[in-house]
């Protein structure tokens, strides 16, 4: 058994409890930020709209594409209808459509 314990059980849902999350960037998002991934700080539990606002506030260069992205957490789309739970090691992907071919 691993002796490592995560603080989630004892300090769950504390909004001040921010964790660093890796954000993967694709297509235009990659061009605008100039990196293929970055780290941002997010709380462990957050409403969908707050999550969107927080991501685009921390990555302000993405403002122009805010309305045309698909957001995925651990390679699955993020549901808008329920609070989003985030833990260490998670990745968020910001996917913008490519239209050329």
């Amino acid at each position, binding site marked *: 058994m691993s002796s490592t314990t995560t603080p989630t059980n004892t300090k769950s849902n504390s909004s001040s409890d921010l964790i660093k999350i890796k954000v993967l960037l*694709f*297509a*235009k998002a*990659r*061009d605008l930020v100039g990196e*293929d991934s970055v780290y941002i700080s997010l709380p462990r539990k957050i409403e969908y709209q707050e999550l969107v606002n927080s991501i685009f506030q921390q990555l302000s260069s993405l403002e*122009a*594409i805010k*309305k*045309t992205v*698909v957001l*995925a957490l651990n*390679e*699955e*789309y993020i*549901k808008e209808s329920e609070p989003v739970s985030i833990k260490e090691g998670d990745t968020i*992907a910001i*996917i*913008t*459509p*490519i*239209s*050329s*071919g």
Partner: protein
Amino acid sequence: MSVHNLTNDEVGRYGRQLILSEFGVKCQQQLKSSKALIVGCGGLGCPAAVYLSAAGIGTLGLLDHDVVEVSNLHRQILHKESGTGVPKCKSASAACSGVNSLPTYREHHVAINSTNALSIISQYDAVLDCTDNVATRYLLNDACVILKKPLISGAALKFEGQLTVYNHEGGPCYRCLYPVPPAANTVSSCSESGVLGVIPGIIGTMQAQEAIKVLGGMQGSLTGRLFLYDGLSFTTRVVKLRPRQPSCVVCGDTPSVTELVDYLEFCGVSSADDKLSLNKSTGMSRISPTDFKNHYRDKSKRHLLLDVRPCHEFDICKISHSINIPLNSLEKITKDELLAKISQNAYSINGGDNSGITSLQSNAGHYCLYLSSWK
């Protein structure tokens, strides 16, 4: 006794895929009775077309309004050096016929639009979106939803590729994912941003794979999932997409888009090729190469030519005495820093007056440096 309609020639030709238990005679026959339309016979359309042809599609529609140019050949692998100026749909059709003469090939040498899309697409069972612009992607999506046809959508740019299947087995459509079209200045084309030839080759080949599965009635299509490919780092990802949206304006429960609209207007852009015309609406002045050449030769008219392309593009070709400050540097530079940089260029300021720069403006991604009275 044979219980299928495949000829001995076909059994011989398709034998290596017929012996796949997941494919077999049933899928081969279904493929043979299917009609697929490839919209765009370019980097994606060429590999998609030749693999569908080789696999034994019944009818293959090849649609493209354009003609072959030399700059296409690094990625649009069905076209030939000797075929420059030939319509791409004819060039692709000829190449596919050379591989497999059994399918019926239909050439559509037209630009697909809101007027002709429904009548063309209604002749087919599935559409492969191999186009190069946002407006046509929304057009094909809406037409496929209206006509209840699956849409196998591929895209490629730089080193990245994307692939999914829309409007199939209850999955989402393009508008479910992207209800709002991207702003014109956030859309990049291959001619602007570049593309490594093999990237559309890989994605177009995968489009053929998905089309074979969809048309052959096989399991495991990419519907509801998005394949992301990054050839530079060799990373692949498959992202689970949101399901069909009941609120979607075209495939939702109470759709408001029930017929095709003006997609250029909807997207606020024209197709990739016409993008330069944007400058007309932004009020930016343009200079033709001929006018510039005359200006350049007229020693009484001093000027500075500032080339804002990236350094690696400036390295490919440049006009003599121009100076290069890439756009991303220009965006961060102050006016004084800019003037200092310009003044390092002795030719440009020989006898000149730096006060000639009146303003530096950005609009829709295009930067203009307004210069006046460089006497």
